[in-house]
């Protein structure tokens, strides 16, 4: 598929050309080409196992294509190039990734240390770190948890800490892997409000999700993946309005039920139950 984009005239934050990636023998991405313009809020849609998380990892330069070309901010990314201190520093300064499982992202003894970790790696001054940590704690309503161990927090609190500890370095590009997975409605609302606030702020946001309920609020443009291939792209309105596409990519499924009056019928049901979440 040729590289296409929402705004072909805007500078690209990321550009992928015919990217292939496999975990040993299991292909995860199969010839994906896409262009993510700067300042856009993008949703990567797809059912479980469609390659969303792998694509995010590639964008975060945590793994590199087996074949094809991956570029960020006009610079080609490869394992060898990321070994260069200056390139790695500049890239990590500009791109932040929020993992699906907050437990893998929270490895410091306290919430304070967690927030300070990124800025410390980037060589910020003590005063700047203290000021920014306090600001983020207040913004994410985490001030009371400052000295708590991240591992003892609730799922929603962990997610907020994970988001805050990436946003604290003010990355130009924010990559999010299933940001609302396993969150209660209130915590989901907080995360969605935060992401909705990024729209129009000039920050590039790429959110991998299969929760269609949040897409209209957080994304201007969508890429739809299925079995490691890019099968569709378009504005959020277009994609969300294409029932056939959503059904074909298993983002919607027919839901059959019987009403109390005895009438049975089917309607589309959005696929937004996170892995491990009770049905």
């Amino acid at each position, binding site marked *: 598929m040729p590289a296409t984009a929402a705004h072909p005239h805007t500078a690209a934050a990321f550009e992928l050309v015919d990217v292939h990636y496999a975990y040993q023998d299991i292909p995860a991405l199969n010839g994906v080409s896409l262009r993510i313009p700067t300042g856009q809020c993008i949703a990567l849609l797809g059912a479980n196992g469609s390659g969303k998380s792998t694509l995010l*990892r590639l964008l*975060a330069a*945590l793994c590199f294509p087996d074949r094809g070309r991956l570029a960020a901010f006009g610079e080609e990314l490869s394992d060898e190039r990321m070994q260069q*201190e200056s390139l*790695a*520093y500049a890239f*990590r*300064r500009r*791109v*932040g*990734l929020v*993992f699906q*499982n907050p*437990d*893998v*992202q929270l*490895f410091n*003894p306290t919430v304070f240390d967690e927030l*300070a*970790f*990124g800025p*410390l*790696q*980037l*060589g910020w001054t*003590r005063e700047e*770190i*203290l000021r920014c940590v306090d600001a983020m704690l207040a913004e994410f309503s985490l001030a009371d948890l400052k000295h708590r*161990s991240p*591992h003892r927090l609730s799922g929603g609190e962990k997610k907020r800490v994970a988001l805050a*500890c*990436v946003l604290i*370095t003010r990355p130009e590009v924010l990559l999010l892997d299933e940001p609302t997975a396993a969150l209660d409605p209130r915590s989901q609302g907080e995360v969605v409000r935060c992401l909705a606030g990024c729209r129009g702020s000039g920050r590039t946001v790429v959110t991998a999700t299969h929760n269609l309920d949040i897409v209209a609020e957080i994304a201007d443009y969508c890429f739809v993946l299925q079995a490691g291939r890019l099968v569709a792209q378009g504005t959020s309105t277009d994609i969300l309005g294409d029932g056939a596409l959503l059904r074909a990519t298993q983002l919607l499924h027919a839901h059959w039920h019987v009403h109390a009056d005895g009438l049975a019928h089917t309607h589309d049901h959005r696929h937004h139950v996170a892995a491990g979440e009770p049905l």
Partner: protein
Amino acid sequence: MGEQTFLRGGHPRRRGDFLERLLRGLLDAMDHAADAERLAAGPGLLQRLDPRIKTLGLLALVVTAVFVKSLVALALLFVCATALALASGITLRRLAGQVWIGVLLFTGVLAVPAIVLVPGDAVAVVPLLDWTITRQGLRGAAFLIGRAQTAATFALLVMLTTPWPQVLKALRSLGVPLILVAILGMTHRYIFVLLESSVQLFEAKRSRVMGPLPGPQRRRLAMASVVVLLERSLQLATEVHLAMIARGYRGEVHLLDELRTRPRDWLALAGLLSIAAVAIGWPWLPAIGDRG
């Protein structure tokens, strides 16, 4: 099978106790680690010292404990270690639980036979067995146990009075290569990942166990659990490492407060090195050394 053993009865209480004990042990280990972090950040004599000075000074005492040639000097070092621990808010109970009992059991296995196996001057005879306890054997056993206890106590003092990132930073400052420090850091995190994975795995297992399983099946399941646990925790540890890289980690240790050496740190180092020098020089000090 579960239903088979359920019908047969069995020993649900014993099995439940084992899993309960295991889970409690794992949770205790995590609590213990959190407690150690609190202790390291708390007030105390050693906590107030520059981690580099402390590491260097206590490392010198560890080496001294290994090479010291006098039992009196070794006892002096041991008393010194205990005094430093108490002055740093570490209780005797904690020292006994974390070091002394374990080291005594481990080295005791090696040291006790030496009491009767090493030839030398007879001190006593074991009744019934007619084994001769020798002065040289007793001395060797005392050295082995004493050295291990003293060195392990000093090493524990570094760990319990210094937050882990500062230990790593101190090691880097003392010239330990980046790769070794990075491996140490990853190992430390991996332990917690392993503990967390273990708790999750055993909780999941406990929730699905209907009754006792026959011995061989239980052992098979235990072995399978170990494999799954290692695989899962390795995967999690890799994910954690990737998350660190994504936030700019390159192996180097960065602290909010840069380490600073003050006059009191130099004074403490001089004190610790003096103790080491006295212990090493003990046999040559006139009149007070034991020369046995």
